[in-house]
């Protein structure tokens, strides 16, 4: 992304509590879940910013006491052909953020995956069910305190 465009994006987001950083040449917005819906809708719908495509939503477990979880969104602008990341740090005990499905419909399954693997809840998601693991499963496998081979007896096999 060129510097001019980055400055433009920065100038549009001055009202919010955000930081900018750089990940291998791609700019990243670091923020908290409070104003995320407004920030995202600005990024998507302002015609001279225009990040109309949501490439991915990932969850991260940093395994620390404060702000343990993080959600990383990867955006792409088809018009300007560049990307930006949004990193949203979340609470340790109750990781929760508003769903982005209202802005990008494609967030639906990404958020379900993040919920399934890390237990991050997305408020306002139309269908927040597990996507990989069985629906009655009680654990979150990609959390750092989850054992590699799973928790014994937590998944039932058919009887022999």
């Amino acid at each position, binding site marked *: 992304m060129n510097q001019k465009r980055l400055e433009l994006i920065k100038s549009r987001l001055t009202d919010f509590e955000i930081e900018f950083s750089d990940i291998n040449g791609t700019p990243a917005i670091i923020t908290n879940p409070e104003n995320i819906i407004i920030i995202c809708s600005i990024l998507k719908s302002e015609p001279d910013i225009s990040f109309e495509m949501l490439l991915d939503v990932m969850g991260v477990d940093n395994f620390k006491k404060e702000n343990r979880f993080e959600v990383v969104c990867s955006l792409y602008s088809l018009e300007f052909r560049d990307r930006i990341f949004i990193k949203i740090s979340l609470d340790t005990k109750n990781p929760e953020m508003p769903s982005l499905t209202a802005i990008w419909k494609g967030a639906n399954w990404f958020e379900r995956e993040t919920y399934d693997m890390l237990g991050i809840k997305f408020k306002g998601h139309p269908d927040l069910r597990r996507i*990989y*693991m*069985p629906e009655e499963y009680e654990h979150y*496998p990609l959390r750092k305190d*989850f*054992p*590699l*081979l*799973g*928790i014994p007896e937590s*998944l*039932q*096999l*058919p*009887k*022999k």
Partner: protein
Amino acid sequence: MGLENKLNKDGFFTSKIDALIQWSRTNSLWPMPMGISCCAIEMMAAAAARFDIARFGSEVFRFSPRQSDIMIVAGTVTYKMSKVVRKIYDQMPDPKWVIAMGACTSSGGMYRTYSVVQGIDQFLPVDLYVAGCPPRPENLLNALIKIQEKIKKGEKAASKKI
């Protein structure tokens, strides 16, 4: 098979009805292709012209469990999939046999992880394990021949032993 010579002599021969049934079962094992992941590609290769599973009477891959005799479980079985595999197995009519094809199916293979069943013998009676990742088609054919030998000898299927 030497039957013609016997028949030419007297016009008849004696045998046990069991032997006749075993003989017919041996040469028409219809497989249920449980192709879950990449082993299924080798299973298809075994069915295609180069390796030609038809030479052993097993060319009729049935996608209905009710018409098949032998289930070839070819691929990684996850806990979520295990219920499906078992349900299909339960629908097969007796006598039935199971081949666990490949490392994943036999032991979890390289997927030593929470979501993969570490060997389908935890929920299915397995007759034969085929090594390889994935096994060559010859290896699958070899498994088939081994099962045919078992049937010829009158050995019980693993499903009957428990």
